[in-house]
Each structure stands twice: as C-alpha cells, then as structure tokens.
C-alpha cells in the first residue's frame, strides 16, 4: 500500500513537537560594544578597582615593551605583543578566582603574568628554552597555545571535567578574531553549550589576523553574534575599556559558575604593534588607523577617569611607574642570563617511561655530548 492509499483527516499539523529549543532574543549581543569609561556609568566604578586596573595596565604595557626589546637583543625568539590589548589581558586575569583556569593563546603571556605567573617562566616558549616553562596545574594556566583555537576544546573539556567532579571551577579561554574561523572554535563552542560547561570564551577582536583584516575573516554582524548559533549568550564589549571588560567577564564567569553555561564575549580592540617583532605591519595597514586607536588607548581611558576623579596624584603615578620599572628591570636581568639546559631532557618527557628506541637514541646523544666535552677539555 502506498501512502496515498492511507486515508485520514487532513491535519494541518506542524512537524510534530517542533519548537525553538531556546529563546534566541537574550542570546543576541547589543548593537554596540558595552562601555563604562567615558560614559556616565564610569562614576559608579569602584575606585579601588580602577586603581588596581591602572597599576596592572601600566605594568602590562611595560611588560610588552620590555619583551619586545628583548627580541631585539636576541633574548627572545619572538614576541607577539599585546600592546593596545592590555585591558583584555588584565580583565581576563582579574575576572578569575584562584581555582579557575586560564587558557591563553600565544599572544596572552600578559594575562598569565597578570595572574601571578613568573614573567620569565611565562616566556619560556618565546625564549626557546622549553615549550612551557611552568606547571600548568600549579598555576591553573594552560600552556600558551600556538595552533589557533585548539586550546578552546581543552578549556571545555577541563571545565566539564571539573563540573563532573563537583568542583565549581570556571575556564576562561582566549582566542583571536582570526582564530574564530577555525573548525575547533566551532566544535568547542558547540560542546560547551551542549554540555553547559562552565567556560567563558573571550575573543580579542584586534582587527587583524597577521595581515588579514576582519572583513576578509567574517561577514557576521559581529563575532559575538556567533553565540546564538550555539545557544549561548553573546556579549560585545569595548576591549580597550578595562572596567567594561572586567565587568562583562566577571559576569560571564559568575554565570558559568552558577551553572548557567558558557558565554561568548567579543572584545573589540586593536593590535597597536606589528603581529610580532618579525612582522612588518606597514605592509598591510595605514598609520592613520593606528593613530585613531591611539586616542582610545586602554591606559589613557583609565588614567583619564582616575584623573577626572582626582584619584591619581603624581605620587601614586610615580609609584605605579616604579613598580612597573622594577618588574622590567628584573625581567631584563633574568632574561639576560643564559638558561641552563640539559639536552638529555629531549628524551625524558616524551613518555612516562622511555621506550627502548629512545634509550638507544639518548645513549647516542650522551656519547656525542661526552665526546664534545672531551674535545672541549682537550682544547682547553
């Protein structure tokens, strides 16, 4: 019998039981980035928080300039500066509790340092002495991640695992505008939403992926609009407004901790320096654009608010500056010392237990090193 032959009432039913799974409305971001500094709401910003953010921003900026200087001296293999993006880096670090986890990308050394990680150990990757210079579990900072967006599913898995274990830990994962184009971004956000994992995704939209401007990266109204496609809230924030970033991230972290699931935050910001010291930004962008953003410098915004409220006198400013200089001096000094490296470490951490293949190769290298030492000794 074909279906035709089944007679029955003409029932104009919609597909059975179909309905929107969630209300899209509250998931959609506002049409303009959320701002505090320079608006009336700034008056309500807590003075202590402002001062703290200011000190961290000054220190952060100094950290960026010092690290870039170290590349010129050959003390760093490469440095992707976050100058101009410090409000995002600091905002991310300060939004988290100690038990929370940070998943930084290669550009986010500063967020790790602002969380309290030793600046020299944070630079291990970029200096080239080892891939990660710290114990991620000790600091709850995942390794600085280079393959774009690949750290995002890690953040989801970790947050999910924590929740399964009954721990109220939140993971904050950082990625660039370019990174949102990768499949891993999509898969991570989807897993997070389906699992309702306590994760906050922070996209620093700094306008470029190396030379590629945002317009060649996406046609979306904003990157935050991607959130609705996963069923999580999308939030748009002025990434140079440290107070706004801190507020939005703190709320998203709280939401996640309270079992509300993940949030996607797009922070609109700008990369003031080249992609890395090895890049030449004049090949792909005009000085005008950079100059326009200089007026919107994250440091400037906080300083002006502090100054307007009379919270930043010369003494305080000097103290902040000195503290930053001291950090820079320490960094310089320690980075100028050659690290002690043991080539035999090459074989130590590949597996829990060395395979016989690796034992053979380790023996070969050890013999070579001994021979080198001997001939060095003989030469002396």
């Amino acid at each position, binding site marked *: 019998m074909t279906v035709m032959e089944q007679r029955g009432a003409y029932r104009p039913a919609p597909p059975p039981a179909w309905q929107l799974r969630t209300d899209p409305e509250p998931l959609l971001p506002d049409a303009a980035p959320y701002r505090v500094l320079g608006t009336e709401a700034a008056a309500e910003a807590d003075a202590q928080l402002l001062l703290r953010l200011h000190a961290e921003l000054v220190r952060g900026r100094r950290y960026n300039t010092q690290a870039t200087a170290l590349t010129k001296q050959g003390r760093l293999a490469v440095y992707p500066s976050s100058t101009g993006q410090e409000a995002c880096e600091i905002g991310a670090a300060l939004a988290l509790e100690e038990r929370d986890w940070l998943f930084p990308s290669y550009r986010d050394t500063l967020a790790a340092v602002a969380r309290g990680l030793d600046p020299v150990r944070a630079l291990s990757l970029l200096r080239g002495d*080892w*891939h*990660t210079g710290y*114990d*991620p*579990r*000790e600091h709850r900072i*995942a*390794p600085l991640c280079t*393959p774009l967006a*690949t750290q*995002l*599913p*890690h*953040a*989801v*898995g*970790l*947050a*999910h*695992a*924590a929740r*399964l*274990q009954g721990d109220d830990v939140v*993971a904050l994962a950082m990625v660039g505008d370019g990174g949102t184009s990768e*499949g*891993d971004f*999509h*898969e*991570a956000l*989807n*897993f997070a939403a*389906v699992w309702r994992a306590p994760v906050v995704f922070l996209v620093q939209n700094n306008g470029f992926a190396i030379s590629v401007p945002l317009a060649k990266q996406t046609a979306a109204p904003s990157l935050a609009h991607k959130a609705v496609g996963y069923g999580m809230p999308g939030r748009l924030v002025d990434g140079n407004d440290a107070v706004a970033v801190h507020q939005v991230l703190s709320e998203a972290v709280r939401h996640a901790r309270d079992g509300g699931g993940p949030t996607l935050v797009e922070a609109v910001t700008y990369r003031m320096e080249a992609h890395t010291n090895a890049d030449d930004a004049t090949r792909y962008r005009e000085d005008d654009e950079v100059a326009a953003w200089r007026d919107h410098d994250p440091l400037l915004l906080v300083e002006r608010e502090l100054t307007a409220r009379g919270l930043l006198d010369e003494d305080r400013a000097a103290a902040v500056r000195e503290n930053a200089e001291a950090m820079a001096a320490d960094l310089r000094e320690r980075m100028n010392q050659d690290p002690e490296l043991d080539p035999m*470490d090459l074989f*130590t*951490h*590949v*597996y*829990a*237990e060395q*395979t*016989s*293949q690796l034992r053979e190769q380790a023996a070969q290298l050890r013999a070579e090193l001994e021979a080198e030492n001997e001939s060095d000794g003989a030469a002396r």
Partner: protein
Amino acid sequence: MTTVAVKPATMGQALGRALRDALADDPTVHVMGEDVGTLGGVFRVTDGLAEEFGDDRCTDTPLAEAGILGTAVGMAMYGLRPVVEMQFDAFAYPAFEQLISHVARMRNRTKGAMPMPITIRVPYGGGIGGVEHHSDSSEAYYMATPGLHVVTPATVADAYGLLRASIASDDPVVFLEPKRLYWSKAEWNPDTPETVEPLGKAVVRRTGRSASLITYGPSVPVCLEAAEAARAEGWDLEVVDLRSLVPFDDETVAASVRRTGRAVVVHEATSFGGPGGEIAARITERCFHHLEAPVLRVAGFDIPYPPPMLERHHLPGVDRILDAVARLQWEAEN
C-alpha cells in the same frame, strides 16, 4: 557488579568487558564518542556501559572528532582518563591536529607536568565489505608521531588485556581494533581475564625455523593460516604478533629473525610509507649478518582502499604471503 559470562567470547565482547572493568575500577575513566551511549556503539562494543555507569561516564558526544579528542585533552588536564572512540578509522582524520599537536606532545611540552592518559579506540582495517572510508589502515600516521603508543590486539584475550593496559597507561594510546576480528571467537573467561603488562611486548604466536612472519592485528590469523599452508611446501614458519607498534619490541623481533634468517612483514596498510618499511629497516639494521635474503613485505597496494567488490584483491592473503616466502632466496641455503 554484573558478570557477563560469555564463553566463547568475541573480541568485541572482550573489549566491552575491558571498558566495563576499567570504568568499575577507576572513577576517573570516562568513555566518550559518537553513539557510544544509548546505542552502545555501531559495533556494540560499549553496549550497556551508559546504562550501568550513567551518561556522564559513557557519553554520546556531538558529532565532531576534533571536538571529542580536544575536550578529552581538557578532561585529561583535569586528571580524568578519557577513553575516546573514533567511529571508523577514516573518521579519526579530523582529529589529527589535536592528536599530533596536543595529545602526543602535552607531556613533553610541560616537562611531564601534564601527562595525557587518553586511550583512543579506532576500529581499523578492511575485509568487512565496508564502503569507502570504512576500511582504512592508518597506523603509519600514528607510528610517525612521537609521544603516542600504538597498540593493536589480534586475539580475544589480548583485546581485553591490551585495552586494560592501554587505559591504565599514563600516556596516550592509539588502540587499533581490527574490525574484521570483532566477531572472532575464542574460549575466554571474563571472570579471570588477564591483562598484558607492560605494553610493548610482542609475542611469538607460532614457532618455526624457516622464516619469520612479522605481523599484527587483522593479519595475525592470516599469517597463522599461511604458516599452516606452508607446511605443505616444507617451510616451518614462525609468526610474531607485534601487539604494540609503539613501543616496538626490537628484542623479540630480532631474536626471531636471527633464529630463522629470513623475514616477511605482513600488514593491510599500504606498502609505501607504511609500517612495513620501518619494521624491515629495523630488522635489517639489527640482523643484517643473519639474513639470507632481504626482508620482504606483503602489504596493501599503494592505492586508496578499494570498494567492497574488489577488496579481496587488495588484502594480503595466504597466497601472497606464500609467494613472498618463496622469494626469500632459498637457493642461498640449499
């Protein structure tokens, strides 16, 4: 603890039992993948696990292999021991970046601070009449990736023992399950199953004096059959089941070849750039002066896996193995 007393058991059942026992013994073990929950996996290996241990311990994930492995990395970072299923060999490819750049390197990257005790189960190989993308033998990719263990069982008992050992390993293991042996049966007591400890030991499945067949996974039964058939030709073949491609048991393999003086490496994976090259090269490096003939390879042709109606021409079978044995320059001895 319900005991499924199955005698004889299939390899699929032994694998399921290994997962069950691992889940029961260690609360950090989590099984995850596409259709592993309610359905029990397309090969039913995970049948009953979600029911017994709940959806959080045996989880149907969204359909995204990089996401599955990537979230497993995060779970391992937090101290869990994920057992991930890739539904078929070729569907593991989307997860390669996570596998190569993270799973295999995280321990080394962090100087041992962050091990990756992840087991990645991959049904592999052909001979089941599967349509395209359902019969790949991808072990060469895994072997070429330092930081991974690569393990594959050929018997029901090993399926259990090696999977338990893999899950217990503090390092990532790509656990290759020979699809066409899922239904292979053996007397096996699920109440006193033996684990294999440690990973990385080959086993001589059949002793012989004339030549060594070095093989693994789905090709082990084929080689045993070939060895039986070879008796008619007057050859007494030894069959070595590698069980673990990484680490590689140089000792057992070299000892066998030194004894016999001749070797054929047999596998389904394509020949060029496949596992056999490495194996033959290692044997030659170690046993050169014991060899009466070059180490030969019987492997899949250097072609994409064929459609079902042609796969028998591609797979290394008894005849092709015997042909290779015949080419081992017996005149040199006679």
